[in-house]
């Protein structure tokens, strides 16, 4: 029964193939399949939900269990971003497809940009808007960006045992603003753990980039989209 329904809904395109193209890091293939799906009349949000995101999930699982590595993750994310860029004009007509804005940065004193950059890329590939503040970001700068966008999602990274000590203060600064108080804050970086995240008043900890995307999706479901749309 379900098979028949799926076949009817997705007549002319195969979400499984799109997911496989994303998971397999095939940007041209993913783009071709998205074009074919649109031509077959599939709605843009369904293409994202049934094709692109499951592909990223599969890739994330393979990354978590050690079957995929950084290069595969980056190329998969590129495939998803290319597909999403192509879909953007169609998605903008569909308010329901909107996922939130994440303000992201590596904390003050810390220049380690790589993990945070990967999180930014994966979030974009999963359809989030990302305001990437870069590295060496102060609490005031985080607060300013969050208040300006009324962003509900914040991600902070620290790679040094020195700079992670400053994260609690940055979160306190952030919480001074009304948007900051309402925001969900995730932290990550090699020297951190969940207990540390809880101690400094963060709402969650992600052990790697794919876990960060899952965490922001959970946060997004909790807070809805109240921020200023770009």
């Amino acid at each position: 029964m379900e098979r028949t329904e799926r076949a009817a809904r997705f007549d002319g395109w195969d979400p499984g193939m799109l997911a496989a193209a994303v998971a397999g890091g095939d940007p041209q293939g993913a783009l071709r399949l998205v074009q074919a799906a649109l031509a077959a009349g599939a709605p843009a949000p369904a293409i994202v939900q049934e094709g692109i995101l499951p592909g990223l999930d599969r890739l994330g699982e393979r990354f978590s269990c050690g079957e995929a590595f950084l290069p595969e993750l980056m190329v998969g994310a590129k495939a998803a971003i290319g597909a999403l860029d192509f879909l953007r004009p169609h998605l903008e007509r569909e308010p329901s497809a909107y996922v939130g804005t994440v303000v992201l940065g590596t904390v003050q004193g810390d220049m380690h940009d790589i993990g945070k950059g990967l999180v930014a890329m994966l979030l974009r590939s999963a359809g989030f808007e990302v305001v990437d503040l870069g590295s060496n970001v102060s609490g005031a700068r985080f607060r300013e960006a969050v208040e300006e966008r009324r962003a509900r999602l914040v991600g902070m990274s620290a790679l040094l045992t020195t700079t992670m000590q400053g994260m609690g203060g940055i979160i306190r600064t952030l919480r001074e603003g009304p948007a900051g108080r309402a925001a969900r804050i995730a932290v990550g970086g090699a020297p951190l753990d969940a207990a540390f995240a809880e101690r400094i008043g963060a709402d969650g900890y992600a052990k790697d980039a794919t876990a960060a995307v899952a965490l922001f999706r959970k946060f997004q479901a909790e807070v809805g989209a109240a921020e200023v749309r770009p």
Partner: protein
Amino acid sequence: MTSRERVRTALNHRAPDRVPLELGGTANSSIAALAYEKLKAHLGVQAPTRLLTKQGQVADVDDAVRERFRIDTRPLRIRPAERWEDVALPDDAYQDEWGVIWQRPPGMNSYFLHHSPFEAEATPEAVRRHRWPDPADPGRVRGLAEEARRLAAETDQAIIFDCTASFWAEAEWLRGFAGFYSDLITNTAFMHALLDKVLETKLGMIGPALEAVRGHVDVILSGDDLGAQHAPMISMAMYREFVRPRQKALFDFLRRNGGGAKILYHCDGAIVPFLPDLIQIGIDALNPVQVSAAGMGDTARLKREYGKDLSFWGGVDTARVLPFGSPQEIRDEVRRRIEDLGRDGGLVLGAVHNIQEEVPPENVCALFEAGLALGSS
């Protein structure tokens, strides 16, 4: 037993009189300049801080500190080019001889990658067109032979020679992080061209340097970071396609021209899956044994599975224990690593990577006092 004999004995997998201690033998196993200032004040050592590297701002450890802690190593480094001078740029930035631009942000102590010359155009043609460093620049070996001879004759410690025997790191800086890792899948012709050219340039630099120091150094440092916190950065298949053949060529070259010096390989992160290959292609010792990374913390297992062929260099946790632990916790950590890794030689004990700014001098003292006390029993 002299320090030099102690390190050599340990690296030959025989039990020395005590576990050799390491601080400042390489620019990856030293101490951040700011922590070093505090340490010297604590120890009452008065000397201006000299740097081992400009980019990382780590200290060149003084003999007074080396003697105080009974450190068994000392560094010797290839010299800078003399026909090239780093180009000073605005905003505390500079361009190095590879064409890579580094910048020190306001309030920070080290320089960070700012611009990569192959960011915009990543093609084999761009590799050919690029202005590469001159490997034969005589500055690189200026005074090096004399210095090596002098250190070997006048000092006791094992001499660790850093001739920048790496290629992966330079390639990553030249291309930039994001492009580098996706090129490994989508732009392989460029990657091979880039890696070949970097390695060729490096071998051109290393050859004369080894000739200058041959017979006077005990250990040659190599290193390229391949590990992330939870897993290697790349798959085994990719390691074997892009890295291993070039590493083998590099290690063969170091072995052929190194006058019997051991090969110490530095690689951060979780790299257990690559260890059998690395041993097979000729590394003698692994630094820093990042015990906070996945699979690296079970040092008893590392010794059991790889210790017959591989020595361990480092091992004392810097993610948690050194900066935040009590002196007792530091002693416990030192005891554990010595028990796990030190049987029948095969261990040079030190911190995992450079001791960071926030580590209190008392903890640095606790590390080396425990190493000295527990390493002899």
